[in-house]
């Protein structure tokens, strides 16, 4: 809901090159929790597409299952969308891309959807370099199923059910870099100054563009110090096994200059340290990115921004040498060899 800024409803909305207003890029009203980071990301996608003057129907939106995966309903209402099954967005997006290389594909996933059930598909869509934007709305938790740890949850954080989480979190950006991703970026849901241009760059990239967006979950914060708001609820609702109280929360936003770092306070009072770019980063060097990310991690900081890009990236259609015409636009004429050819085949089978 958070992106439904009243100003957007103004009659004299600014128009983009195509004559569309931001309204033309909005979707249905969000049913996520008030203040959910995912809604901020939807707003950023809307802004990015509006500013780029992308005809809305040139976008196809795809997702898996989860709060994050619900969001394609809440942006780009004039684009076709596909809310598939849990963890399998990459396959569906790959197939869609095969059918029509001319559309823009925006895949939205969550950390559960990507790093757990979807890990295999994530790895292989990176490897194929499918021309698409892949946004992981990473809240370190399973939102929709009410608060289990995800594979990106930090060590030592306590999940709602009580056990500390003792496993190394999976760093999706590093994995993507390691696997040869041609575009890797990281951002924070509330930093639209950074996120909007990153999404635009990802759309412009010819190949698989991965953006890991840290996106706080209002309701199930699993960050290390995660105690504040939750304990209050727990105390007051001892009789119920289900967590059914969501305190009112505002969207968390931040603004900070490139090269600097900032600390953002989450809904539960814990903090996350963001570092916006680093002058030493060579965005054309995979190793530079990997090394710097590790360094910041050691300082308990998350490096944000565009981490790596390969401008010479060749998407899967290019490597496969597929026809320029979208495959789905081909007709009998191009596709069916006809009866004469068949008779020759028959002949060879005698």
């Amino acid at each position: 809901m958070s992106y439904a800024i009243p100003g957007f409803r103004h009659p004299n909305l600014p128009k983009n090159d195509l004559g569309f207003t931001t309204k033309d890029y909005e979707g249905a009203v969000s049913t996520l929790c008030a203040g959910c980071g995912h809604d901020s990301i939807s707003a950023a996608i809307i802004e990015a597409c509006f500013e780029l003057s992308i005809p809305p129907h040139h976008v196809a939106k795809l997702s898996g299952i989860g709060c994050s995966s619900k969001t394609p309903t809440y942006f780009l209402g004039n684009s076709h969308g596909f809310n598939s099954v849990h963890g399998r967005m990459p396959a569906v997006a790959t197939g869609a891309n095969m059918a029509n290389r001319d559309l823009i594909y925006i895949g939205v996933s969550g950390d559960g959807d990507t790093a757990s059930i979807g890990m295999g598909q994530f790895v292989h869509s990176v490897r194929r370099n499918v021309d698409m934007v892949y946004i992981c709305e990473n809240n370190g938790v399973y939102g929709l199923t009410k608060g289990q740890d995800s594979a990106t949850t930090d060590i030592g954080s306590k999940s709602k059910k009580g056990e500390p989480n003792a496993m190394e979190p999976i760093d999706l950006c590093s994995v993507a870099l390691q696997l040869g991703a041609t575009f890797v970026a990281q951002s924070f849901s509330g930093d639209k100054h950074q996120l909007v241009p990153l999404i635009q760059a990802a759309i412009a990239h010819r190949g698989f563009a991965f953006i890991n967006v840290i996106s706080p979950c209002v309701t199930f914060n699993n960050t290390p110090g995660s105690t504040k708001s939750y304990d209050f609820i727990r105390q007051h609702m001892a009789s119920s096994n289900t967590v059914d109280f969501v305190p009112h929360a505002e969207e968390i936003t931040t603004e900070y200059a490139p090269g600097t770092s900032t600390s953002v306070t989450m809904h539960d009072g814990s903090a996350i340290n963001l570092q916006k770019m680093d002058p030493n980063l060579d965005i054309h060097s995979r190793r530079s990115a990997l090394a710097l990310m590790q360094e910041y991690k050691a300082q308990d900081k998350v490096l944000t921004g565009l981490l790596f890009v390969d401008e010479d990236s060749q998407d899967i259609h290019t490597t496969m040498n597929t026809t320029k015409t979208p495959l789905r636009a081909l007709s009998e004429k191009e596709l069916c060899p006809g009866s004469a050819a068949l008779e020759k085949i028959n002949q060879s089978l005698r």
Partner: protein
Amino acid sequence: MKREIITNLFVVKFANVNGTGSASANRLFSKAVFRMGVPVSPKNIFPSNIQGLPTWYEVRINENGFLGRRGGIDVVVGMNPQSMERDIGELERGGYFVYDSSKPLDKKMLRDDIDYIGIPFTEICRTEYTDPRQQQLFRNVMYIGSLAALLNIEFDVLTGLITDQFKGKEKLIAPNVHALELGFKYAQEHFDCPIAFRVERRDNVGNKILIDGNSACGLGAVYGGATVSAWYPITPSTSVIDAFARYCRRFRVDPETGEKNFAIVQAEDELAAIGMVIGAAWNGARAFTATSGPGVSLMTEFLGLAYFAEVPTVLIDVQRAGPSTGMPTRTQQSDVLTCAYASHGDTRHICLYPSNPKECFEFTATALDLADRLQTPVIILSDLDLGMNDNMCDPLEWDDTRTYDRGKVFTAEDLDAMEKRFGRYLDVDGDGIPYRTYPGTHPTKGSFFTRGTSKDEYAVYTEAGEKYVANMDRLLRKWDTAKKLVPAPVIRKTKQPCTIGVVYFGTSEAPTLEALYHLEDLHGISLDSLGIKALPFADEIADFIEAHDYVFVVEQNRDAQMRSLLISEFDICPDQLVSLLHYDGSPITARQIRREIRDWILRTTTTPRRRGRK
């Protein structure tokens, strides 16, 4: 022993070690018989490994055109010492055992009711060739040469085949022909050729062709306009995609730019493969995948999505012996129930059951039409026997005026002309099939959200019970519509009215029809028959069953799955349906069917028939 001469009615089995290159030599043999105008049906029996284990090639030669497995072997070419005892044991009385006499035969291998023909293939090779790979390869060609002499196969036909085969690599023709000659001569010089089993030229194959079902499926996908294929390797379905790729390279590559009018993606697993097919089909391309049982199990969740979200999906299931990894290189018809009801919740899928390569070709093209028309998964249930063996069948046909049925799709113009709100899941004309739009059709109209969750007619998420029920009931209407669109059953009625019928599907067709022929011919028992070609079952199938007191259901699985499906889809009284099952991984034989039906009839005409639980 005075012997009867048997012409064009016998079974030859080659016993080899896999990895020794015998497959192409053996294929030469079948093809030669075929070119002599005599129907053949060869069957590969191979292990689930790459090298060093026994493999067999069983060729039935039958001038009457019966193509199912007959059962029993008349001539064995025993090139594998490992399996020799068993191979000899399988021979019918009066049969011949042709073997490599470079090593002497063990005494315990001797039977006195068969003939032994020893030819020192290895020895000859060792003197003829120095390269050990050549020694091995030409040994295979050589035994074909010997068989030509022994069985009276026209040598010219063999050399013709060799010439055709090595078109473009002519220098390989002479050595191959030479190897054939070596074998031929040795046999002719040392044995009384031909032996009692003989091939004689006939004109009994007409314009028929010899092709494996998987190639036919792959070709059907090309003709049917599939542009996207995603798959994961698994025996025995891999060659469907190999064939699709082969024919695409031939017909779908721009000769100038090399650009391809197709995309084949080797997925990381079956879940991804079907996901890609669903994504491509949702986006307006014709797409398909091929797999076998384990892959179908993995595709279960996605099949449910495609059913409920109504996305055209074509899946070719080349069945093998289950459960689990089962016998990966053996045949069965045991995915019938799994395919019909794959996925949790109330799901049901269109299934097609081809019986021969021509139907593989046609049903694959048809499946692409049906999937688009019905916006739902269409599963083609082939099997290893049909898919991986050369099957003789009528030539493939294509009507050049045929256009692809893309089903109910609104274009930008349709949307512009539309006054009412576009409803993705509205049943505007009562057939249960709604209209769809392809992504990217129109800047402001016709977009919708596809989901596996419950939705209203406008594709909007809903948890309202009545909307859910309306949608589920519409899907049943669509199922009814499908009944009239899927391939019709094939009904064969005897001249006299009869009270017993036989129902079969898929590769049970040839042996069933042969059994029926012999039941009439040998025992004077005439039965009506019906070949099921598709689910949902056409009403004629119920009519057929109702019109008979008893109906045999022939199938190659343990649990009588098709029978269950018939009962539950039609509410047929189970007592009427008599199971005739075979499930050891080999193709069912006409002999078994004939015997079981005959025995049942004898039994039930002497003892009173009791209707009751099985």
